[in-house]
């Protein structure tokens, strides 16, 4: 990162290659839309490049990267443009449906359809959460960050992260299992 701060493009390219999947994964799980995740992930890296001179290595680079990504996700959620698009309707629904179905595993068409539906329901459930709960869930469940790291990224206390996750899990249970005894879609993957 110090080389990037000196304007070294090769170092920046290495940094992009190393962290692109992490950033993309986080944004994709936050918004559930592939095209949007690609665009916003690029925006994250462009912002890193622009603000690299101001970077001071006070904490782990990944924490700074997650914080930057989280801020972009939150500001994008609050942008009027996005809200309007959501009101008009999802332009990406078809493309995202295709991307969800395009899995490298060799599954039968029926299994592929079930997995795609499971993925879609999980992403929709995550997207229905308030921004901070959404971030906490994604960072904990998929990025496996500790509560302390999540607190640093979101900018709150560890106790607040714990409370966020408790509420998020309750909300997710309500979304994914509206009737507790009949988890229809997820029956095949249940324990």
């Amino acid at each position, binding site marked *: 990162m110090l080389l990037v701060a000196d304007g070294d493009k090769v170092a920046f390219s290495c940094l992009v290659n190393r962290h692109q999947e992490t950033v993309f994964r986080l944004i994709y799980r936050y918004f559930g839309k592939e095209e949007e995740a690609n665009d916003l992930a690029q925006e994250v890296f462009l912002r890193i490049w622009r603000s690299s001179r101001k970077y001071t290595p006070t904490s782990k680079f990944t924490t700074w990267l997650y914080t930057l990504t989280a801020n972009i996700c939150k500001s994008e959620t609050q942008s009027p443009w996005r809200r309007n698009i959501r009101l008009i309707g999802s332009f990406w629904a078809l493309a995202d449906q295709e991307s969800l179905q395009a899995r490298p595993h060799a599954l039968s068409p029926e299994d592929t359809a079930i997995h795609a539906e499971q993925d879609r329901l999980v992403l929709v459930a995550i997207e229905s959460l308030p921004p901070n709960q959404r971030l906490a869930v994604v960072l904990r469940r998929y990025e496996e960050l500790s509560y302390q790291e999540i607190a640093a990224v979101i900018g709150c206390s560890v106790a607040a992260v714990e409370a966020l996750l408790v509420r998020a899990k309750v909300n997710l249970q309500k979304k994914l299992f509206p009737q507790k005894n009949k988890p229809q879609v997820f029956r095949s*993957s249940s*324990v």
Partner: protein
Amino acid sequence: MNKSSLLPMNCAAIRNKLSALEDGEVAPALRFEIETHLAVCSDCRQAQSELHHLWQVMEAAIPPPPRPDFSQEIMGRLTVKKESRLINWGRAFGFMFPTPTVMAVIVVLGLLIGGWVGRTAMEGKATIATAQGQAAVLEAMDVFTPVPKGSLAQSYILLVSDATQVKR
């Protein structure tokens, strides 16, 4: 009515900690306390099982990989941004401070054009300036005499001279 308010305090508190327990974020002493409670409380065990199941279900959201040309696109955007900035700054700088050669050329051209335009205009006027024009100019020079024609002083003198002639 809220279901949790009907539960014994212990169960409600334990359930609030189940999430942290699942995430491995509970201190050893508290963990022991929770596990002791879970061993005897089937409702809390059920809640823990549901939470565990939820976390397993969440695994479903497997993201696709980023676009294959993801990093190239970023590097391309970096170059484009930088070039466009340079061009803009160059243009702005060029407008504000042209080079000395350009300034000299502008001044010389200005002088040449100004001279030509002025000369053309004067040539046109000079042809009009005839003898009649010269007479008009000489008449206009009358303003420098002590009593110019049409002035208040001349009217006063005429009035006084007329009055004296009448008296005589």
